[in-house]
């Protein structure tokens, strides 16, 4: 876009030139595999990345491209690549710069899929990781090894909701000329623009608040364009000649969007974890109302925090906006609008009380997703973590009475009334 606009305006307009063919106001859904070339010269130059253009929808697609440019603009990055899921985004981003023998320093409080990727999958290919408590800044510095090539974390940890001190970690990364990548799914650029604090690239599960309606799975990697790949020889995938493209040097050719280009050339072209055009269209519809929805998510979260804190059947409430939270000061700095709409709380009576609470609420949906327009709850001790003992639950930051809540857009009074039904059921169990 030609000049600086505010977030809401960017969310509606960035990346979309009005369709040149017919003037269609909405982004057309380019549900096509391939693109007809006008002549062979155009074909070969498009293949070689000498000219921009579409070849095949695994690599680029005009509808997906609108979503990519829009998210890059919202995040303040140089470029973005959309992927088939949030996990595909994390994986594609990591393998773009790391190879066998390389090492990651990562927060220990992350989405389980991220931890599993780094703990189980990547080690099979010689990429290892050390996990550090997100509140232990010195621990991050101490964990950096000679072969460390990436620092990775989540601003708002999942499920513990710990807050990562972005500037402190970015400083450590800078000292070692290592990029700092953040899974920003829980904060989105609306609550915190990570690149403003020295983060070099972000990952999002667009499935969550960005899409916001629980209708499509998708991910994105955003290149901050603020890492000097040429200042070190640690990243040959970016700075060395790339054989599949006639020895092209991605850093020299693409500069601030070199990282995104490498993902495009490799993870999209060779591995193919690409987003479908229809998915991009659906997520674009959701993105248009992101700021409106987030304001409501946040205001309802504040109301529910008060409600839960005052409730005599609630043992504890965890959210970074509460002064009792260990990351409260950091939340005020990085997330001034509010620290997201995920809340965890304990139902008095432990595992036996948490279960009837979940089973008896009617409005809140019992499922494992977060960031839907609808309120979602889950009881980790009887679902995702039901097979581990009490001691292991504590280590994972999960207590037997914990309920995780993703606050939706329903009228907040209706959510409260719904919870009362759950609490009454929990009381019946603990009374008997």
């Amino acid at each position, binding site marked *: 876009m030609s000049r600086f606009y505010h977030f809401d305006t960017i969310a509606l307009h960035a990346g979309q030139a009005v*369709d040149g063919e017919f003037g269609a106001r909405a982004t057309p859904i380019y549900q096509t595999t391939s693109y007809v070339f006008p002549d062979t010269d155009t074909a070969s130059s498009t293949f070689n990345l000498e000219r921009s253009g579409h070849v095949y929808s695994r690599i680029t697609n005009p509808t997906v491209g609108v979503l990519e440019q829009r998210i890059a603009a919202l995040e303040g990055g140089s470029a973005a690549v959309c992927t088939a899921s949030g996990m595909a985004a994390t994986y594609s981003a990591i393998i773009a710069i790391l190879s066998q023998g390389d090492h990651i320093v990562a927060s220990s409080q992350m989405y389980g899929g991220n931890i599993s990727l780094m703990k189980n999958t990547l080690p099979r290919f010689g990429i290892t990781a050390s996990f550090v408590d997100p509140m232990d800044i010195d621990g991050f510095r101490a964990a950096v090894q000679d072969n460390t090539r990436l620092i990775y974390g989540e601003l708002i940890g999942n499920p513990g909701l710990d807050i990562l001190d972005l500037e402190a970690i970015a400083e450590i990364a800078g000292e070692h000329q290592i990029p700092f990548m953040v899974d920003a799914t829980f904060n989105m650029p609306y609550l915190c623009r990570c690149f403003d604090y020295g983060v070099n690239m972000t990952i999002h599960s667009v499935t969550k608040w960005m899409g916001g309606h629980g209708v499509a799975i998708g991910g994105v990697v955003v290149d901050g364009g603020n890492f000097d790949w040429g200042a070190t020889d640690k990243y040959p995938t970016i700075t060395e000649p790339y054989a599949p493209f006639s020895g092209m040097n991605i850093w020299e050719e693409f500069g601030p969007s070199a990282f995104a280009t490498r993902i495009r050339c490799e993870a999209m072209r060779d591995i193919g974890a690409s987003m479908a055009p229809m998915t991009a269209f659906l997520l674009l519809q959701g993105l248009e109302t992101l700021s409106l929805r987030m304001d409501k998510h946040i205001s309802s979260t504040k109301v529910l925090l008060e409600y839960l804190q005052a409730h005599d059947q609630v043992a504890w409430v965890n959210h970074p906006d509460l002064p009792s939270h260990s990351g409260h000061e950091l939340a005020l700095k990085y997330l001034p609008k509010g620290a997201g709409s995920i809340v965890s709380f304990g139902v008095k009576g432990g595992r036996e009380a948490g279960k009837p609470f979940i089973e008896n609420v009617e409005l809140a949906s019992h499922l494992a997703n977060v960031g839907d327009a609808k309120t979602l709850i889950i009881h980790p001790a009887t679902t995702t973590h039901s097979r581990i003992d009490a001691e292991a639950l504590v280590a994972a930051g999960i207590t037997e009475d914990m309920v995780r809540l993703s606050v939706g857009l329903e009228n907040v009074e209706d959510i409260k009334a719904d919870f009362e039904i759950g609490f009454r059921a929990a009381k019946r169990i603990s009374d008997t």
Partner: protein
Amino acid sequence: MGFSTRQIHAGVTPDPSTGSILTPIYQSTTYVQKSVDEYLEKGYSYSRSGNPTVKALELKLADLEGGAGCAAFGTGMAAVQGVMLAFLNAGDHAIISDVAYGGTYRLCTKVLSRFGIDFTFADTSKPGEVVAAVRENTVLILTETPANPTMKTSDVAAISKIAKANNLVHAVDNTFLTPYFQRVFELGADISIHSTTKYMDGHNATVGGAVICKTQELHDKVAFIQNSTGSIMSPQVAWLTLQGCKTLSVRMDQQSANAMAIAQFLESHPKVEQVCYPGLKSFAQHELASTQASGYGAMLWFEVKGGLVAGKRLMDNVELWSLAENLGSVESLITHPVTMTHADVEEAERQRVGIIDGLVRLSVGLEDVEDLISALEEALEQV
């Protein structure tokens, strides 16, 4: 160019800005105009009045049928209604095939009758009855051939001559055979109506309709109704239908071959009372069906010995065949018209036109014909 080439390429040109080989899905309400003076310069203003994706399908269907223009509708019934509203006014009269899809019968008798339009349901398989039904105020003949579900076949050329002689518009519901098998304009008709839900889509994915007119003058009248009443097709439906059309001829060939094999199997089965398929020599109008169209289609019906009770048992027990409305898709369907598709036709009228209680309708799909036959065989054993 041949039909199979046109079913793939007609109406579709690579997107000029990206080269996209398929027409994009223009899921857009409105179109940005360059300036007031250049309003509609690119052809589109609002997606009720026109949409680039829907337009691609309209161009393709007009080409396949050989007409001057096509108007796509939200459903096949909306298409029938579009033709009726385009040509009939209060006080006018239309002649309709006395066996037509139950929805067409309902539209005429329960809806359009309220607006002072009069209908005669004539046996269009007998041209003499059509001549006899023509009145001073008759303006339209709608022929459905083969008729749903009886398969009664009407002589399109003969009725077109009657229409011409009396200055009437002759519309043919060409859903069952499609332009691949039945060239209604070459036989003299003026308008072709389709439920694109059926063979055009072919995959049970959409509901849609289309009206193709032989001349621009007729098309303009239908297009005016399409925009004024707003019974339009959505871009998503048009896009899916565009994909379905690409395999129309191969599906029609195979589904018809399957239908012929099934009709022959049923005809030789001791528990079957009667089979009605235009491709069988026993079909009363086999000669007309053979000369008027280049294929017999994939619809047929039969009656089990034991009538309604036996037929219901067969439909409730048969494997592989889905008990469902709709027809023309790759999935084979089995239907009981009396309780399903033609439930709104009064019993006396059903009996009069030959929709007997024990009539079991088959829409033959693309499954392996041996599997379809053995499923029927097993179900017949249980009867």
